[in-house]
């Protein structure tokens, strides 16, 4: 033992005797995680969040969250001598006078866009592979909560600089608040401390943006990760992988190195984007005044689909008892997002109700093997994509020489027609892929080699696939549809006939699949 090793051992022993950390570390550092690129999507979100914390802290050193009116005397000449809020002036100061300030602002904003994008692709991975099933329903709900809070947090950050685009966004947010029946006007008065824009809003959302929401984020992310730790990570099916084990690499040293390295890569990509591409050039927008608005005012992409819904909704209003109900804002701005997010949060429970499956699952589904869920996901994705496209309808119109009205009508019809079409097509594709898997297992791989038999017939040589591959393609369960007779096994009438009918119908749809090959199929092939 060298002197250095002895010293290290002494220190480690000193710490262990006082904290008892050795036992805990020994157990947890050898924890095994499965390896797949799609398991790293959530990591991108986590690392973007750390980048957001660091760059955001830097920005608070100079940002002045105040709507106090100041006269700009800074370096950016096109705004020289213009009256503006201290918030806007200090953002200009960060951009032009603080060393590295503009880069930091751009890192903060690009990291926010990547954070939200990473959350969405992570959510899609979890959804399409069925990782939300028991026992992970709570973690799914935490994830939906993080997504929702991310949208709010991003919007508040976009609003803070008090430029023309921010103010336009806040104005629309105010309209959405006001559209809520009865309480809307009161909530708006409360939030803005009086009439729009007032002087209270920027300081208030600053506190929420830098203190309240990041705190909630930290708590939820911690809970999210602790649940992953406690419940273990899911894994893709394969030989040797069961519901009771995990095949992968230990945390120390493999994942420590990988995750640490990946953090710096995420930071590098964010810094690269921020160095080469401008984002939110607030000095071009000018300071906010309610009298001004720019063509092509857009929210960031994660709000874009909501904006698109509001843009496409027909102008319907009701006047009753001296009040106006603005359905054109209430439905696309409050009700539809409310239904979508509630439905998303409850999906694990809905699916388990339909399938009647109350068991734990640690092996992931291949999306093709659960055609109904996959089709539902693509359907929801189609809906939001059409809405997102309509959110940029003015930019699309001018860049591609189209009519904004045509795009709006395409979206209005498309948002109703395209999702069901996407559902049907996706389901058919999934079933076809199941059929292809079945062919592959029964007949092997097509080699492309043609053989001419003595009697003149041409056949293509098929090569049997490996047993490992065949296992992966056939390991999944194929449940039968639920049978919900009006009278149960004991001859007692089952309550809720209509609900049972619905459940049975949905269960039939959810279990529609191509039968996977079994032993008898293989025997029959060998017989030929």
């Amino acid at each position, binding site marked *: 033992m060298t002197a250095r090793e002895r010293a290290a051992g002494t220190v480690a022993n000193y710490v262990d005797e006082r904290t008892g950390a050795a036992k805990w570390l020994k157990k947890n550092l050898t924890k095994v995680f499965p390896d797949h690129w799609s398991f790293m999507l959530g990591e991108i979100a986590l690392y973007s969040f750390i980048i957001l914390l660091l760059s955001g802290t830097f920005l608070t050193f100079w940002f002045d969250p105040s709507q106090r009116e100041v006269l700009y005397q800074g370096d950016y000449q096109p705004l020289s001598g213009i009256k503006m809020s201290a918030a806007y002036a200090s953002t200009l100061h960060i951009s032009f006078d603080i060393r590295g300030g503009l880069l930091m602002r751009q890192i903060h904003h690009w990291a926010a866009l990547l954070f939200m994008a990473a959350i969405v692709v992570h959510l899609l991975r979890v959804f399409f592979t069925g990782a939300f099933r028991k026992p992970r329903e709570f973690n799914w709900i935490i994830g939906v909560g993080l997504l929702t809070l991310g949208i709010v947090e991003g919007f508040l950050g976009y609003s803070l600089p008090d430029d023309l685009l921010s103010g336009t966004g806040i104005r629309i947010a105010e309209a959405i608040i006001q559209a809520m029946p009865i309480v809307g006007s009161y909530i708006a008065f409360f939030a803005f401390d009086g009439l729009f824009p007032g002087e209270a809003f920027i300081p208030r959302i600053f506190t929420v943006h830098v203190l309240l929401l990041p705190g909630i984020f930290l708590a939820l992310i911690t809970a999210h990760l602790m649940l992953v730790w406690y419940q273990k990570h899911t894994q893709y099916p394969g030989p040797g992988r069961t519901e009771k084990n995990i095949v992968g690499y230990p945390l120390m040293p493999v994942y420590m190195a990988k995750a640490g390295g990946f953090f710096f890569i995420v930071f590098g990509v964010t810094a690269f984007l921020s160095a080469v591409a401008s984002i939110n*050039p607030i000095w071009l927008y000018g300071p906010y005044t309610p009298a001004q*608005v720019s063509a092509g005012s857009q929210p960031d992409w994660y709000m874009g689909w909501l904006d698109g819904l509001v843009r496409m909704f027909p102008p319907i209003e009701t006047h009753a008892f001296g009040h106006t109900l603005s359905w054109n804002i209430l439905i696309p701005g409050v009700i539809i997002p409310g239904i979508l997010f509630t439905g998303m949060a409850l999906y694990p429970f809905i699916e388990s109700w339909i399938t009647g499956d109350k068991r734990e699952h640690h092996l992931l589904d291949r999306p093709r093997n659960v055609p109904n869920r996959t089709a539902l996901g693509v359907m929801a994705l189609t809906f939001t994509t059409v809405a997102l496209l309509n959110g940029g309808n003015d930019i699309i119109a001018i860049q591609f020489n189209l009519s904004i009205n045509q795009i709006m009508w395409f979206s209005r019809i498309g948002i109703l027609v395209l999702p069901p079409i996407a559902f049907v097509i996706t389901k058919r594709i999934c079933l076809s892929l199941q059929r292809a898997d079945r062919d592959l297992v029964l007949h092997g791989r097509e080699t492309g080699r043609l053989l001419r038999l003595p009697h003149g017939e041409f056949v293509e040589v098929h090569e049997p696939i490996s047993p490992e591959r065949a296992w992966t393609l056939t390991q999944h369960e194929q449940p039968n549809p639920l049978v919900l007779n009006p009278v149960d096994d004991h001859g007692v009438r089952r309550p809720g006939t209509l609900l049972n009918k619905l459940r049975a119908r949905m269960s039939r749809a959810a279990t529609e699949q191509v039968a996977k090959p079994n032993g008898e199929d293989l025997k029959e092939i060998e017989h030929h």
Partner: protein
Amino acid sequence: MKRLSHYRRHRFAGPVLLLFALFMVGTTFSVATASTRQSSSVLSRSTSIAEGQQIFLKGCSSCHGLNAEGTKIAPSLIGVGAASVDFQVGTGRMPMADMSVQAMRKKPAYNADQVAALAAYVASLAPGPAIPGGEILNYERDGSTAQGGELFRTNCAMCHNFAAQGGALSQGKSAPSLMGVTPTQIYEAMITGPQSMPVFSDKIITPAEKLSIIKWIKAAETEPSLGGASLGRVGPVTEGLLGWTLGLGLLIGVAVWLATKAR
């Protein structure tokens, strides 16, 4: 040929063939649609009203009427002034290529002398806004960039976008980008209100304020993109697109790479 057929199962054969087919289609299309340029006849230098009338009768009267009195398909030009003619014909909007949504900026059909003659003729019909020029247009001396920016954001940005990059209007119409538009043309557009644009008379925006607006547009035109590539200065749509494609694309690429290395 035999050597070529040797590569038909190469894994790049498909992409190469696709590229080749695209190239052939593109070339064929551009050859087939290439039109022979019309050579505009050169008139002798003249700004006389008579010359202008001759040009008008040949090129404009079929829509605007023999005496510029207007028809069902085109407005009367009596009283529109020289500024309007200089803007519409000088930017190539008139004569219109077709009667669809709106007249688009294109290569002018007439040279400067012909435009001047046409303008003189139309101005002779009734008094109207004259072509601004010379001392009136000294925006570098008489304008203020910051004030121009305020005026632009209040009066122009709602259609032309915050950075004068243009924006969409209803039914396929659009407010054009103001990049590369001459100060004279910007001034003319403000006083004549071409197409969907309102007239900004000297009572609404004073001549000095107009010069400030021009000065700000020129400053915006030459302003370097301060934070890196400008992404078109059209707001968050292009930013979101780049974030999803380049940003997330790179990160997922790295994730795939990291997971592959472990095998």
